[in-house]
């Protein structure tokens, strides 16, 4: 059952071969047994999940189910879910039981009828690439428990990789869906900015943040995205577009597909074993009828510097709301109001979050705004223009997701800059607001390697098609980590 696709699970539910409650219990049992070691979940609430499963069974029995009704899902703990502890991986929200649902939660639970299994671990406020900045301890990579699962959606990635959930939600500000998907042998999609509502998704960098699906296949991602996406009046940057069936074009042949290979993604700085797997995937695509064309993203080397101005600037503003007054943590001892703020924030935030707030406060401060913030925004434009020029010559851009496979726990934790460079291939996509995916494409010394696919605006359906056809020709995405029966 745990290797079945969402479509197969839906068929089993519709054919009454299993109930949602039985399926939910199966996963809850696995979580109870395996999560203490993996640490993929911060919160599980079996009774709440079982109640949702019973409701889904009633809905199915009444013939009112949708394509995903009764299927369990793990929710990244960045999404506010009414009645659930919603921590965002931080001590600051360590006691925050959300009084409302994020739009993504409402759509998945109430509209689609999925059953939430729990809230997954993540880097604190989604700031990190290894899951080591979580207040609730690091997540272990199911493929090698001495290694990181990636971040910031590392708990969601580890949960799906360890078969503690069939699918999960994630969010991606600079690579936080794609990089953990790559490191855990999953398929993950960051949609075009504005496709998935940000309402109730705790904000990190508002002009970059975007939610998306994490699963074992492109087909599963398409089905989950169908349930997550859509216009939402409660998100001021949600895009009002006609609803789309992201699974509609999955089977389309790839004949004549033009794959753009940015020369900047195939130079130095990438692990040779990762590059070998990516090259093998390109050869597979050629067999499937695709043609390759060299393209250039000449400003891509500036994406990490520009991101580490823009994202911290937005974060310093967004995280000013955590002041110990309306919700979350408040320092136990303080004097004046100012002292209360300073102590609450000193004790409630971890080191990486503080660093980013400080960078943001500095680059936005008087006298530095033009040199840093405006300059970064101008470079952001150059990066977006590079993509626009490249898409004149190709349909999908392809390259590695991460320059290396999963690294050891603790290996990069002491050096923020080394950690930031984990996202060197993913960040430009967020700056431009484009959709991007990572799909499994092989192994390097026993560790999964991810292939990144980047599409033009609103090309999610095309990306999923390109990923799905590859997954029909290859078996990499079907591999499961050992020792987690």
């Amino acid at each position, binding site marked *: 059952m745990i290797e079945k696709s969402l479509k197969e699970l839906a068929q089993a539910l519709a054919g009454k071969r299993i109930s949602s409650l039985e399926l939910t219990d199966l996963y809850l049992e696995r979580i109870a047994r395996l999560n203490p070691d993996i640490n993929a979940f911060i919160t599980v609430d079996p009774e709440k999940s079982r109640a949702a499963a019973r409701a889904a069974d009633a809905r199915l029995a009444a013939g009112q189910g949708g394509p995903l009704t009764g299927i369990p899902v793990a929710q990244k703990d960045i999404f506010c879910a009414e009645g659930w502890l919603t921590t965002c991986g931080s001590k600051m929200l360590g*006691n925050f*039981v*959300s*009084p*409302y649902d994020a739009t993504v939660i409402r759509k998945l639970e109430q509209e689609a009828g999925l059953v939430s299994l729990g809230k997954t671990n993540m880097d604190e406020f989604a700031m990190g690439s290894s899951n080591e900045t979580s207040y609730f301890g690091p997540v272990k990579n199911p493929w090698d428990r001495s290694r990181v699962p990636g971040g910031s959606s590392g708990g969601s990635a580890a949960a799906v990789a360890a078969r503690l959930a069939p699918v999960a939600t994630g969010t991606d500000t600079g690579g936080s869906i794609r990089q953990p998907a790559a490191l855990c042998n999953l398929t993950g999609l960051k949609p075009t*900015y*504005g496709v998935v509502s940000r309402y109730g998704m705790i904000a990190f960098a508002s*002009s970059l943040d975007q939610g998306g699906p994490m699963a074992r296949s492109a087909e599963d991602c398409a089905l989950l995205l169908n349930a997550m996406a859509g216009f939402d*009046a409660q998100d*001021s*940057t949600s*895009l009002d577009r006609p609803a789309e069936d992201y699974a509609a074009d999955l089977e389309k042949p790839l004949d004549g597909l033009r794959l753009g290979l940015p020369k900047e993604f195939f130079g130095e700085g990438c692990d040779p074993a990762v590059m070998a797997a990516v090259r093998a995937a390109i050869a597979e695509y050629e067999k499937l009828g695709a043609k390759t064309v060299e393209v250039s993203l000449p400003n891509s*080397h*500036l994406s990490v*510097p*520009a991101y*580490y*101005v823009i994202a911290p600037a937005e974060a310093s503003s967004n995280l*000013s709301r955590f*002041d*110990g007054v*309306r*919700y*979350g*943590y*408040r320092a136990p001892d*303080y004097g004046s*109001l100012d*002292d*209360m*703020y*300073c102590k609450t*924030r*000193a004790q409630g*935030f971890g080191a990486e979050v*503080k*660093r980013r*707030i*400080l*960078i943001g*406060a*500095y680059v936005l*401060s008087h006298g530095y705004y033009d*040199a*840093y913030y*405006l*300059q*970064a*925004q*101008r*470079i*952001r434009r*150059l990066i*977006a223009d590079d993509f626009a020029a490249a898409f004149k010559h190709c349909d999908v851009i392809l390259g590695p997701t991460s320059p290396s496979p999963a690294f050891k726990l603790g290996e990069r934790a002491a*050096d*923020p*800059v080394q950690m*930031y460079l984990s996202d060197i291939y993913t960040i430009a996509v967020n*700056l*431009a607001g484009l959709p991007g995916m990572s799909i499994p494409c092989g192994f390097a010394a026993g560790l999964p390697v991810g292939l990144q696919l980047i599409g033009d605006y609103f090309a999610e359906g095309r990306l999923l098609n390109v990923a799905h056809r590859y997954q029909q020709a290859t078996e990499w995405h079907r591999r499961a980590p050992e020792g987690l029966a």
Partner: protein
Amino acid sequence: MSLTLEQVQRIAHLARIEVSADEAQVTQGHLNGIFQLIEAMQAVDTRGVEPMAHAQDVSQRLRPDEVSETDRRAAFQAVAPETEAGLYLVPKVIE
């Protein structure tokens, strides 16, 4: 560029985060490493390039000025550190 300890303390205060002298020293090292990375931007000539604040070139949506939310004060204040009579309590600011 590199930040002095004094500047670290100043921005920490701007951000309302208390930083001890020991922490300031470690933070200074980390921040300067990050600024070294950011510095790569400064060599780029961006004259005439329009700053890009947002991924989508759309203007802010407006909605009719109508009441759309119900009163959920009790639910929202249930998660507050300290409230009294529907008010959030903070240390005294006016003597």
